[in-house]
């Protein structure tokens, strides 16, 4: 059974077809890259999958279950987590709290346990603290746990977003430009990091990225969008030599030098 199956997905904003007849099937353990020029509709696809927008048409199935129409928090609880193009941490909260917050749906104590600090509360909070620290340690953020999220340097904030989404225990992780604004050195570390978390947490990963070094290195398969539509898909090598893709990025008449 595919992890993600998107069929005939469309989204119109007024007269604008932001996404038009988008198809995508992802098998377990795949890393798929979604690329295309700015404004091609990539982030809109992400927003449709994670429930921020309702599709105008089409279906989205996750592990065989239709999820379009569910509110975002339900989709997350089913096992899809994401990061954001413009980092959206809980800024004034601590690094640790950013991660602990998303444990909520799986916490096994009730309001009364919390209000009266029952043994069940204490045991469960201990577990949450331990596991949250493990996620932070995996992303090399453990020594920052007590800092405010807004006080972290940019790269740490990106990693904290990843730690937070991992703490949702997703099967499908969606990364929206995880290497935006990074230098080649940092990009290659991000590539290693994504590989590491994929193995460690057994993830299927869908990512948007403009850093070609990253997508070509990391992804087994690429899907290219332009003007809301898929214009090509295939292995990185196939995409590299695809005339349509070159035109979308560089304009008509472009050739590989």
């Amino acid at each position: 059974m595919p992890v993600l199956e998107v069929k005939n997905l469309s989204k119109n904003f007024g007269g604008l077809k932001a996404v038009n007849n988008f198809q995508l099937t992802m098998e377990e353990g795949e890393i798929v890259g979604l690329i295309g020029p700015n404004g091609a509709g990539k982030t809109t696809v992400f927003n449709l999958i994670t429930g921020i927008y309702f599709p105008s048409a089409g279906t989205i199935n996750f592990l065989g279950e239709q999820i379009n129409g569910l509110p975002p928090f339900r989709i997350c609880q089913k096992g899809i987590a994401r990061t954001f193009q413009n980092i959206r941490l809980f800024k004034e909260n601590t690094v640790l709290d950013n991660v602990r917050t998303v444990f909520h749906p799986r916490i096994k104590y009730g309001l009364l346990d919390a209000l009266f600090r029952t043994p069940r509360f204490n045991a469960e909070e201990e577990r949450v603290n331990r596991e949250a620290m493990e996620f932070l340690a995996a992303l090399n953020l453990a020594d920052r746990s007590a800092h405010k999220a807004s006080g972290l340097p940019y790269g740490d904030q990106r990693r904290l977003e990843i730690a937070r989404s991992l703490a949702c225990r997703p099967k499908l992780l969606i990364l929206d430009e995880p290497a935006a604004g990074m230098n080649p050195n940092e990009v290659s570390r991000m590539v290693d990091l994504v590989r590491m978390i994929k193995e460690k947490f057994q993830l299927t990963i869908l990512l948007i990225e403009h850093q070609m070094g990253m997508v070509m290195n990391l992804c087994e398969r690429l899907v290219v969008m332009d003007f809301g539509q898929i214009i090509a898909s295939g292995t990185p090598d196939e995409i590299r030599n695809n005339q349509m893709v070159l035109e979308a990025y560089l304009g008509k008449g472009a050739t590989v030098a």
Partner: protein
Amino acid sequence: MKISRQTIMLLILAAAFFALVKGLQFAGVLNAYWQLVLDQALVTVIGALGLSLIYGFTGQFSLGHAAFYGLGAYTAGAIDIVYGNGNIIFFFVSILAGAALAGLVALLIGLPILRLRSDYLGIATLGFGIIVKVGMDNANKLIPVLGGATGMSGTPQTAHFDLIFILVLIIILLVRNFVFSTYGRACTSIREDEIAADIMGIDTTRFKVLAFVLGCSLAGLAGGIYAHRYPFLHPASFDFLKSFDFLLIVVLGGLGSMTGTIVTAIGWGFLMEVLRAVLGENFIDWRGVIYALILIVAIILRPQGLFSGKELGLLLPRPLQTGQGKERSHAGTGS
């Protein structure tokens, strides 16, 4: 059940405060007038902690808090006048009934209006507060005991400092426990970024409503206690100006700081009365002017509030065992 060192320290501090007040009472420094000021300030602490949950921790702008305070006061007062006659059991029954009614109304109004954002939510709650005030002004037409625009008098004066103090302490502990639990974390995540919280698996509607209902219940509880410490309830005591009082306590204290809310609630309660005492009869007209100036100067000097980013250590949970540093408060900057 383990009691943390923080809790023990908090109880010791509370006992010291209690002993101090008792000492002042014994020495005759704290006369009946100042005792009333102190007791009402403590009642305000409970109501303000309620708004702190709603706005300071969950980020939901409410300008109608006094309406729930009033609903609690009138409910508790009326129940005790009709059935209780000063029986201490009815004190508890009536204040819980007041809190429950405030919470129920908050649930009914909160479900639809908490979809609104920031200033629009503020105006909708302000409007709701004015509707409740009109209701209070005309309540005697349905239930004569409520008194309507002339006010309701003769509520049994069962509450006194000892009782109020213990209730405040319990509420402080409960609010602390709520804030430093998964529920509190869910609430602060909504305050910080509602969309991100939603996408990260938090049922934002549920927690906005939960915080609103709990916060308004605390306002109702505070109102119920107030009705038992001040024998005359009047709709004007629960109008939007009173809502602004709660708001400025929470903001001046620092959003997301229980310490700030508690300290400011008590300090603000005393400010008006201290001004009255200091100014004397000749300059009493200046009281409102000075009060307003203090408010403006305070917020310009400390736009983040007194305790923003800080919580008294006693109110924080036990530090983590991992040795990776202490937990911080849940300070927020507001919208």
